[in-house]
């Protein structure tokens, strides 16, 4: 759970019509207007013909306001979900390939256990680990594994959803 404030990273959800070129409309909007994209994920939703993007950007309130309005202005954008005012959950998945020799293997497995991660591929020299979590958790495991020798990292970028009202 996080709440955004000034000058920080911001998460925006974008519901789009699943048409050719829609990704480049969104990406082009950001590059053309000088907005930042920290991460961008996109995949189909449960509704046919509709995809959902989650993008993480940064900027002050005025820039954020513009980003939301400009996204809304795109014809293929159905809805923009601005997470500035709402509490939301967000998750990211990372695959991390780590060097695993006799000295480090046990330590890696301990870390995997602590972070509730999974080993998804094993070879004589490497473990590939799958870990899911928010930004802080991913950063923490990468730091720990980094000390043991990371070979490769592939991250999905963030997916986000507003929390449902409790009452």
């Amino acid at each position, binding site marked *: 759970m996080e709440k955004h404030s000034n000058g920080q990273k911001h998460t925006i959800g974008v519901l*789009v*019509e699943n048409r*050719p*070129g829609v990704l*480049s*409309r969104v990406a*082009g909007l950001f590059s*053309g207007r000088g907005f930042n994209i920290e991460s961008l994920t996109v995949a189909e939703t449960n509704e046919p013909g509709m995809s959902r993007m989650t993008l993480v950007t940064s900027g002050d309130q*005025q820039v954020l*306001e*513009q980003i939301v*309005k*400009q996204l*809304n*202005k*795109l*014809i*293929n*954008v*159905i*809805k923009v979900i601005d997470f500035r005012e709402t509490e939301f959950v967000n998750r990211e998945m990372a695959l991390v390939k780590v060097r695993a020799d006799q000295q480090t293997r046990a330590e890696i497995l301990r870390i995997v256990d602590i972070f509730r991660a999974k080993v998804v591929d094993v070879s004589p020299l490497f473990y590939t680990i799958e870990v899911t979590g928010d930004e802080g958790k991913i950063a923490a495991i990468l730091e720990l594994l980094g000390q043991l020798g990371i070979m490769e990292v592939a991250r999905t970028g963030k997916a986000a959803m507003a929390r449902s009202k409790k009452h």
Partner: protein
Amino acid sequence: MKLKGSQIFFECLKKEGVEVIFGFPGGAVIDIYNEMPKYDIRHVLVRHEQGAAHMADGYARATGRVGVCLVTSGPGATNTVTGIATAYMDSVPIVFFTGQVPTPLIGNDAFQEVDIVGISRPCTKHNYLVKDVNDLATVIKEAFFLARSGRPGPVLVDLPKDVVAAEAEFRYPKKVEIKGYRPTLDAHVGQIKRAHQLIEKSKRPVIYAGGGVIISGASEELTRFAQLIQAPVTATLMGLGCFPAMLEGPTGEKDLNPQWLGMLGMHGTFRANMAVSHADLLIAIGARFDDRVTGKISGFAPKAKIIHIDVDPTSISKNVVVDIPIVGDCKNALQKLVHMFEKDPLENIDESRAAWFEQIHEWRQTYPLVYKQERDIIKPQFVVEKLYELSNGNAIITTEVGQNQMWTAQYYHFNHPRTLLTSGGLGTMGYGLPAAIGAQVAFPDRLVIDVAGDGSIQMNIQELITAVCNGLPVKVAILNNKYLGMVRQWQELFYAKNYCATCLDAAPDFVKLAESYGAVGLRASTPEEVEPVIREAFSIKKPVIMDFLVAQEEGVYPMVPAGKNISEMLLV
């Protein structure tokens, strides 16, 4: 019954009431051209696709209808890009149809293939690649709808050759349904009430009107609103004509409207820029706080609360944070405001505004727009004044870009909407002549004048033949100073007179050039010759180029240097 894509194309255009297409053929659109003679739609054959784009633009701006442009793939399509961007910046409704290579060849670097949908994405309101002939009618319907609704703009439809050759059942959809497109036209009453309260409290209000007023057809409402709240009105370049600059007196003589401040911004009048700088309330209507208007942002209307009416939410608080945003169609919002002030008029309004109008009058007296007419040499401002006088202010004026454009904005008094067609946002040299042709197509009996510079007229001069062979008697007034005058002026003021690449003393003889095209060429080189040349040009029922040899190093003033407050004007 099944129709070919090329026939569906024309059936759709008929349904949209299209009367004219500006275009240029080529391999990828040859199927469409093959069907053209069977349909009662006029085609104006241009000499360069950029010309077609600006003609569709001039037609659209002069009429308020959607302009249509048809070109082939590859270079045909890329040649329209400047015209598309011009229309996008100034919110002009145009549908561009571009040919494309057959769908199986797309992506193969085929002959005359270019990804025009990719290229035009950032400068269209929306665009389409039609991959299936069964989608063609729906796409065209949507394209026209998008172009004209909300904040208007250009829409591009890319038509692969095999798609227009294929057959489908023709059904023109009755309604358009685009999930993600619902422009807010109805201004929020709560916001209107809040605006009303601010206006009630204001002592020194200024109305800052832009092109949106013209687009939404709200000139009458604006004039009524300004009258009810007794506020002076300034307009952007795009807004000129939305508020009458001149008023007719009881005996028919015309005098400057005391409520009219003239244009504001970089080359705005002293009184407009001072009024904005001293206002306690700025009412922005269909304007977008462009940098040429605001100068240094922090110094723009520093004492004012701001109300901003615009149909495009992204225009609001983009450059300047406003106090009361009102998203909606200008006409709708103004009608509501007018209604409110008619029901509940401001008390003692004449009295309470007296000091403010006195101050404005004083600014006008201190620094009016002036130039010094000399005995032997024509001043460009004098030419524009004469054009105004001799056309009774009733012409449709187009301009090119640069000094010619600014002098026109300053010295031709625009009293009616859609009488100034000029490339404001993009600043496209070469716009004026084709735009004039487009406007003349729409209004064959009106006087249409392109005020040009000797530089910019050469950017689309090839379209003179289009005017000649289509019997479109546009008049071109070249303010010929043998320079790229606006850049030269900047070099003079800010670059130690280093006139690098701005001298155009190697130029064609514009009179002979006109004659070689079958138009008429006239020249004036002294002030006495100006009026007879204009009179003669107006009397000729053919395209005419008037070549006015004007003072070479005349500048446009007032001028706000880039990055300065608009109150910091250079005055001559």
